[in-house]
């Protein structure tokens, strides 16, 4: 047969031979009445979070009589992070949320009768109120919106509408919704009330009236993407500054953002007016933005196409003359490439291993050993493999470590601390645990530590690890970014005793709502990679729809999505997302940062670079920080003519870019046009 034929058509011509196919028959004939319905109590299926509730069910026949031999079972059908239910109907709530439950009644030989229900797990009574507007001094005539939220004793947010009153309306009035107006000098308390709980917010109305207001700088020239900090200086009749006041900031026209701290970033070139307002008093400043003009041309210096398997991680030996390249989709080897002439990378060796994916590989800083991960080994032991790099062009396997890593290792990071030695920081595909393996003696690897997020196993998944300055940055999928002290000392941690420093968790379902709308529920999304740079941690998500485009095939059937976020960790206790990048098409996968440039493998969006100089805030794409783009599609590949750019390693001005579909690209970002290097 030389051309594709549909299965349906083929099967039509398969002769059905009566008797040739044994049709299994249940040997047991169901006895007694059939189940017609289920009666489940209580009918009110709401409960307080972190409490327990007993559900009971009876199977009834068509006449409403109980069917005596029915087996009733309760089973959880979702909400795996929020609660559990025992087989017998005991609900144990772990948090607020909704717990979908399946109640089934079975009789041997008959189809089960199933009813789905949801248990609402609600916050308890209001216990305290948190006020999020941190403004304690107002000027006469100033208006300020105060916001507050009610929480129960477990710190679960309640939906109560918080009502506001003023202790002294002659000084400060407030609407029920929290809009305060400073009327006269003096002190007052704004009182937030939810149920029986109240929260006082002391507010002082300054005695001195604002008669003048300055905004500094009065004017500024900058580029799109630069963050300019404005300050408001209210003054009294004597021209003296009134301290402690906070204006409302706004700007027009154009695209950009300004925060409560007066930090402004504009996305488009042009002239913007920045306004600070204290009620009747306001003042303006002017900003003129020019185009950022960071776009630069690219040059493909060298190429090593790979067609037999998909290409996985790339890593460079510290000598800069050797590259290692993993393989996947059944790939049982990694390549060693001589890149001493980047224009002509040559495969010098390959190591065949018992694996079907070498997803990650990395040397130690000295370049004496190489560690690679394994997934899909035929003995299912997987784990990691350690090779000697006595000759970097020809790695020699010297040890492996598989204990507890039978499901496979996705990522591994090799890191040396003089105080603790050299360790491999590895992910466990099966348990989502973080494993720390001492390879100070690379011939005798041994596990010294393990850490995992304190949540039920369901949903725990660890994808990638970055280690810098004794801190491990874990891309923990549903749990977001986790920072562990593994020797830095900030929390007294060590490789054998990792201690959590911080977590930044965000609502992935909300962030990628459009992916669910496009491809249905159950889509792939999670925090995938992290990289520390200055006071930022750059995190990137891996996102794929749960189903492809109907009727499409191969590369046309699917695409990646994803967002890169810039997390400001200057205060570890309060990490906050300050900037982001999201391609219009494609995803965000692995990144590398060198100097003020971020290099990214963006899956379908190809290879991209970004200017990350200065303070970062807002939409990096909109503010024209993208410097270069290469569509790494190639007819010479495992998948032809489609980009699936995985990541990049940067060395000596060259970007070594691996594309999952077609191998290695060696790329140089050239100077801006018109500039001769």
């Amino acid at each position: 047969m030389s051309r594709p034929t549909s299965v349906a058509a083929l099967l039509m011509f398969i002769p059905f031979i009566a008797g040739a196919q044994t049709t299994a028959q249940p040997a047991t004939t169901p006895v007694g009445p059939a189940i017609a319905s289920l009666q489940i109590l209580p009918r009110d299926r709401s409960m307080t979070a972190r409490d327990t509730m007993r559900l009971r069910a009876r199977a009834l026949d068509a006449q409403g009589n109980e069917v005596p031999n029915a087996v009733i079972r309760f089973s959880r059908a979702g909400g795996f992070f929020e609660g559990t239910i025992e087989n017998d109907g005991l609900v144990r709530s772990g948090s607020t949320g909704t717990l979908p439950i399946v109640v089934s009644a079975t009789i041997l030989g008959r189809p089960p009768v199933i009813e789905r229900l949801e248990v609402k797990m609600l916050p308890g009574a209001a216990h305290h109120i948190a006020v999020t507007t941190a403004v304690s001094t107002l000027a006469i005539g100033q208006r300020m919106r105060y916001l507050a939220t009610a929480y129960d004793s477990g710190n679960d947010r309640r939906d109560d509408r918080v009502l506001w009153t003023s202790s002294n309306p002659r000084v400060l009035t407030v609407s029920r919704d929290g809009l305060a107006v400073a009327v006269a000098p003096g002190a007052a308390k704004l009182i937030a009330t939810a149920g029986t709980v109240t929260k006082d917010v002391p507010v002082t109305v300054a005695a001195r009236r604002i008669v003048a207001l300055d905004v500094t700088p009065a004017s500024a020239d900058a580029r799109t993407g630069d963050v300019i900090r404005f300050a408001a200086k209210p003054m009294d009749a004597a021209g003296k500054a009134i301290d402690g006041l906070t204006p409302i900031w706004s700007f027009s026209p154009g695209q950009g953002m300004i925060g409560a701290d007066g930090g402004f970033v504009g996305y488009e070139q042009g002239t913007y007016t920045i306004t600070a307002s204290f009620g009747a008093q306001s003042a303006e400043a002017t900003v003129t933005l020019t185009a950022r003009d960071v776009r630069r041309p690219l040059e493909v210096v060298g190429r090593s196409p790979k067609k037999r398997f998909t290409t996985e991680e790339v890593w460079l030996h510290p000598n800069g003359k050797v590259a290692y390249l993993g393989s996947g989709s059944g790939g049982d080897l990694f390549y060693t490439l001589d890149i001493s002439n980047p224009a002509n990378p040559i495969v010098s060796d390959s190591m065949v291993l018992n694996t079907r994916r070498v997803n990650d590989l990395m040397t130690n800083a000295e370049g004496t050993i190489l560690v690679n991960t394994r997934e899909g080994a035929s003995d299912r032991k997987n784990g990691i493999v350690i090779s000697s790099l006595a000759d970097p062009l020809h790695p020699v396997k010297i040890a492996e470590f598989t204990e507890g890593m039978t499901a496979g290792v996705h990522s591994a990071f090799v890191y040396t601390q003089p105080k603790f030695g050299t360790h491999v920081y590895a992910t466990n595909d099966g348990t989502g645990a973080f494993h720390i393996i001492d390879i100070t003696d690379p011939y005798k690897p041994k596990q010294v530590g393990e850490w995992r997020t304190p949540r039920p196993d369901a949903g725990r998944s660890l994808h990638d690890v970055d280690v810098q300055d004794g801190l491990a940055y874990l891309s923990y999928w549903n749990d977001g970014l986790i920072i562990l002290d593994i020797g830095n000392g900030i929390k007294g941690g060590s490789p054998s005793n990792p201690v959590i420093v911080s977590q930044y968790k965000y609502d992935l379902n909300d962030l990628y709502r459009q992916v669910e709308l496009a491809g249905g529920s159950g889509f792939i999304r999670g925090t995938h990679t992290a990289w520390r740079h200055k006071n930022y941690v750059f995190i990137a998500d891996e996102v794929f729809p749960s189903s492809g485009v109907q009727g499409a095939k191969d590369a046309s059937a699917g695409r990646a999505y994803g967002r890169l976020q810039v997390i400001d960790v200057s205060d570890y206790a309060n990490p906050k997302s300050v900037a982001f990048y999201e391609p219009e098409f494609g995803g965000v996968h692995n990144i590398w940062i060198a100097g003020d440039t971020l290099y990214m493998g963006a899956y379908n969006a190809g290879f991209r670079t970004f200017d990350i100089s200065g303070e970062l805030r807002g939409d990096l794409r909109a503010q024209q920080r993208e410097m270069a783009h290469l569509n790494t599609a190639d007819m010479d590949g495992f998948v032809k003519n489609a980009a699936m750019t995985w990541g990049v390693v940067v060395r000596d001005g060259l970007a070594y870019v691996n594309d999952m579909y077609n191998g290695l690209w060696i790329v140089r970002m050239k100077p801006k046009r018109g500039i001769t290097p």
Partner: protein
Amino acid sequence: MMRQRALARATLIATVAMGSRLGAQALAPKVLPTPPERTYTIAVASEGTDEISIITFGPSGATIQARVPIGLSATDPDGPHGLAVSPDRQFYYVSTAHGTPYGSFWKLRANDNTVVGRVMLGNFPATAQITPEGHLAFVVNFNLHGDMVASDVSVVGVDDMVELTRIPTCTMPHGSRLNAQGTKHYSACMMDDMLVEIDVATLAVSRHFQLTKGKEMGMAGAPMVLASAGTHDMSGHGMTAPAAGDPACSPTWAQPSADGTKVYVACNKTSDIVEIDAASWTMLRRFPAGAGVYNLAATRDGTKLIATNKRGQSVSIIELPSGRELARIPTQRRVVHGAAVSGDDRYVFITVEGIGSEPGTLEIIDLRTLKTVATVDVGQMAGGVDVIR
């Protein structure tokens, strides 16, 4: 490869070798001169490449008709492992081992290979089977991944694709089968040296059986299983030979006889088969098998037991009730995995995983001549297998 996603139809190919990815390693199709009189359709799960191969075997040989991608993640392994066809042959079901971290159980329509349902189960869902009346699936949650803790067997209502319950059994529940009557479910506990029986009527463990050589004993009720201390060694998942004198069975498959009166258990470490009387719950005998006996299958006429020998790179055809090995048939590649017998007891379809980048293989053995009559390369790490028609 950016695979066609889960709900999409399969890409169809009409050649035996699995396209260019298998390259030079692909074996040429081999058809011996005893062609079948009808055409069989077989489904094979390839754990290494996240795909199901639909193969026809008929008078003109064995041919791959479709490669059906399965799984959620485009870039991470999903690991299809167990495969079961519904009794009415309208659907087939596939367990995928990996997730975040839990795996799933998928329902596909057999006539067009379209996914019509999925439910998330436990850690590494593996062997699966549908009850004779077609309403329930029993899927063992092998939990190969992490700590050596007791796992369970999921019961899925396949009409609605909802998990009805999980029945706790033991550490690493593995190869499992229902009796032909659909009243009992037997699963092997790879790390606890036990066989567990589930009463389908009550959805509860009814009995268990200690399989360690010299300590064989049947007991009522559920086993008391403690987390295995200290080691994650699982003998290379049946590939590592045991130490000399090791009496541990390390059971990997439980296969009821055609009439349900006996249960055969493959002891992977001791390389023998334990025959248990289902009524008295006592051991009748142990008889030898090939090295690393792994999966079992029985003919419906009750005359043959087929055993895959994982370490022995062979398949044993064992005569019942004598227990005599009629033939030991070598396989072309290593890591022999699954076995499924055609509905007419004429052929047994054997999956061979291969190692590394070797393709997986479906080897077809004629149960009359006891010869391999066809082979076809499929995706790497071929494991779960069942006969659609």
